């Protein structure tokens, strides 16, 4: 097990109160597995990433029942150890908007070799070999090593970032919206690259893929988790999540995505917007937008039910799922939810 998180909570203290950015997230990532986290703005993805690589501000409160990376407790680990041993070598990050992560006045190849030599004992030639190999793996010509960041196109920069994340052969790579904002052909190339890298990699690498694009997640992930307002609403193996969704939010998301293979399908949006994470919501966080809400839902937080092995749902009305799946396909159902008025 590469990553094991149980009941992770990250709270930010601000003037007006406490923002419960992550409120009890549990997920696990196995070796050589791609776990996709789908969620819209405000769902807590960025906080989760920052918590995992220890970039949260001092005032943030991070608690968890368990937070292990390769059986080491990374929550309790002192910062220095984390930075030297885990970051980049164990857990690497491909950040959103790759451009800003590169120093514009240094050649890209130099930045890469410097990164490697700072963390290992390899000499310059060996570092260059590693960089060259990885550039090749992501489809960048070796010549680009001598180029400056501004000479890279958007897609190329993203690929360079992916290469950089793999420099020290980490066990887990976190990819934050890796293809958002890129043209579809460029996106396709990158996704294909990632698949190729996984297949031929000497050391297996697991990926935590975080994006709002359900299609990308469907294509890339082995397992999928649906995030909303700081919690996981549902998580399961990819096909099972798509074929047998349980949570109303998942049902709603499925209808909200157009597909070129389903030209006549009616698109249905979920009225309302995510809750303000400062507010104390005693019940289910999705209750306000849920068309299937009952008074019970708003009184207590639903439990994380394991409805089937490996399939978790955060809802108390799973017994009605057959009915819900039918109703969710009808626009009127969603327009009757309270957030629609």
């Amino acid at each position, binding site marked *: 097990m590469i990553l094991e998180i149980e009941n992770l909570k990250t709270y930010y203290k601000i003037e007006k109160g406490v923002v419960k950015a992550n409120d009890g997230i549990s997920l696990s990532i196995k070796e050589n597995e791609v776990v996709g986290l789908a969620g*819209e*703005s405000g769902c807590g993805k960025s906080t989760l990433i920052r918590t995992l690589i220890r970039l949260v501000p001092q005032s943030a409160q991070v608690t968890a029942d368990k937070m292990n990376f390769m059986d080491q407790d990374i929550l309790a680990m002192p910062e220095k150890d984390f930075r030297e041993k885990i970051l980049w070598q164990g857990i690497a990050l491909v950040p959103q908007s790759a451009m800003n992560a590169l120093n514009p006045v240094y050649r890209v190849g130099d930045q890469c070799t410097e990164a490697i030599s700072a963390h290992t004992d390899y000499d310059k030639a060996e570092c260059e070999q590693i960089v060259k190999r990885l550039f090749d793996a992501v489809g960048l010509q070796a010549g680009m090593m001598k180029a400056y960041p501004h000479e890279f*196109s958007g*897609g*190329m920069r993203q690929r360079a970032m992916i290469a950089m994340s793999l420099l020290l052969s980490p066990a887990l790579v976190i990819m934050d919206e890796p293809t958002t904002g890129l*043209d*579809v*052909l*460029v*996106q*396709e190339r990158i*996704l*294909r690259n990632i698949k190729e890298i996984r297949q031929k990699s000497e050391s297996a690498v697991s990926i935590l893929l975080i994006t*709002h*694009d*359900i*299609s*990308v997640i*469907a*294509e890339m*992930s082995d397992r999928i988790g649906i995030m909303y307002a700081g919690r996981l609403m549902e998580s399961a193996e*990819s*096909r099972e*999540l*798509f074929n047998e969704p349980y949570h109303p939010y998942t049902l*709603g*998301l*499925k*209808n*909200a*995505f*157009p*597909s*070129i*293979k389903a*030209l006549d*399908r009616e*698109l*249905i*949006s*979920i*009225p309302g*917007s995510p809750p303000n994470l400062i507010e104390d919501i005693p019940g289910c966080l999705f209750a306000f937008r849920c068309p299937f809400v009952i008074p019970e839902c708003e009184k207590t937080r639903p439990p994380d039910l394991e409805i089937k092995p490996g399939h978790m749902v955060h809802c108390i009305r799973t017994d009605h799922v057959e009915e819900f799946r039918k109703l969710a396909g009808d626009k009127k159902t969603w327009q009757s939810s309270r957030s629609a008025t």
Partner: protein
Amino acid sequence: MAILEVSDLKQYFYLQPTFLGKLVGGAKPRIIKAVDGVSFTMQHGEILGVAGESGCGKSTACLAIAKLREPTGGDILYKERNIAEMSKSETRNYRREVQLIFQDPYESLNPRYTVFDSVAEPLRALTDKSKAEIRERTNETIALAGLTPEEYKNRYPHQMSGGERQRVGIAQALVLEPKLVIADEPLSMLDVSIRAGILDLIRDLSKRMNFSCIYVSHDLSILSNISERLMIMYLGRIMELGVTRDVVTDPHHPYARALIAAVPIPDPAYKRPIPKIKGEVAQPIDPPPGCRFQTRCLQVMDICRDTEPPLKEVKPGHAVACHLY
């Protein structure tokens, strides 16, 4: 009568060579041919989707059609009148009938204007309506866009979500009851769960208020859902144009084929084909003669390198610009 007839639209930008360039090598000014010969017609009430990656010229073409930028060449005929020849009052009228919906709901609204002021602005700028008429029409349009006027009219942009702001942008565009609306990627900056609602809004209003719509996007999934006809552009030229269903299910042009193959599907079981295309997206600077797609086409022939393929019908209503046909 077609509402819009664009023929051979061209938009070139001239890059002046650097001082050093002129000194050293007698460098000539370089030309960016952002739009290079785009021709199509639009009927009343139809929704035309324009697809293409960045740099294909779709947004540039829209600016020219909206009369926000003067084209370098070609003609744009609105209701059979050339917009370049319009007088000042005709242009004012044009603005009443041709409107834009912008991509960024955060940036396209004046942060100092309330919703009411923003939506009333086109009326104040372009019509002589009385205060009462303006108030009525504005409130009507705000409601039409799905927002309750009492609740929203005094709000400022920073007090609203992205979806709400975009609805205000739509209200702004529709308050004058235009006949042609150009929507430039209106959904790309919105959360996915609310996109469907805005898309439906545009579609419904287009039918109800009977306006034509040019919907520009790089997202083929969205375009396949909303547009009746689809136009695929590459480096300033149209590669394929036809009924959406035909173009998406039976694409002819190699670029269109590659593009459609590349679109991911929200279905884990789907095995996506590999797009048959090579190379990186090129810049429209000093393009070589012949087909714009030659550097990336896997089926390129000699003729492609010196003659530009014309946009020809391969089936009724389905045209392709390729020498393979």
